[in-house]
């Protein structure tokens, strides 16, 4: 049963600390998305990758957020330093985009981040 796996599921950290969230996309998928969800803003697109290359990360606060795909089985989202306003649920999703086709996205369970 192929699924997107995110770790950790929950993270509580103190302001100023570094936070790293990990995502294992579905094997064979070539597109990975990172989203942040809050009650106020809904689902915001932070960054996405195609074949491990970043296509757009304009949704991320550049000074503190970074997203990478060190290999095809791992995507990471890092916040350094974290702030209380970063508290949210962070979702990773993966999909298979074919030439001339479209991507149905499969979402992970999310990482609930609380920065105190």
């Amino acid at each position, binding site marked *: 049963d192929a699924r*997107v796996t995110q770790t950790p599921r929950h993270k509580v950290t103190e302001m100023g600390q570094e936070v790293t969230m990990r995502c294992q996309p579905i094997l064979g998928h070539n*597109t990975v*998305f990172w*989203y942040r969800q809050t009650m106020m803003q*809904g*689902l915001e*697109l932070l960054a*996405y990758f195609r074949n491990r290359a970043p*296509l*757009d990360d304009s949704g991320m606060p550049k000074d503190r957020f970074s997203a990478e795909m060190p290999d095809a089985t791992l995507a990471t989202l890092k916040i350094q330093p974290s702030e209380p306003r970063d508290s949210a649920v962070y*979702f990773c*999703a993966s*999909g298979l*985009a074919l*030439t*001339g*086709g*479209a*991507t*149905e*996205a*499969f*979402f*992970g*369970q*999310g990482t609930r981040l609380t920065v105190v």
Partner: protein
Amino acid sequence: SQKIEQNSEALNIQEGKTATLTCNYTNYSPAYLQWYRQDPGRGPVFLLLIRENEKEKRKERLKVTFDTTLKQSLFHITASQPADSATYLCALSRSDNNNDMRFGAGTRLTVKP
């Protein structure tokens, strides 16, 4: 600026009726549009995808329309059931080679028995 608006935060209907949810967009030229369902504490789950050159798509009790002139998509659930209660999200992507999928705020549907 680009906007994706779902017409209402919440929609309450009676079991057996048809639920109709709306997604409007401005300053956007999507190549395709998707609908997702999200239950509390879980990630969104894909339901349907429709391309800009398609008018309508169906899947079981679900139907999606896509009107690029009105810049609107309608999502219908016929013969609704309490189990259909969830938040429904529309997502737009600009092009097949740059699928930067962005979501509306969602509509919370409650189907009362």
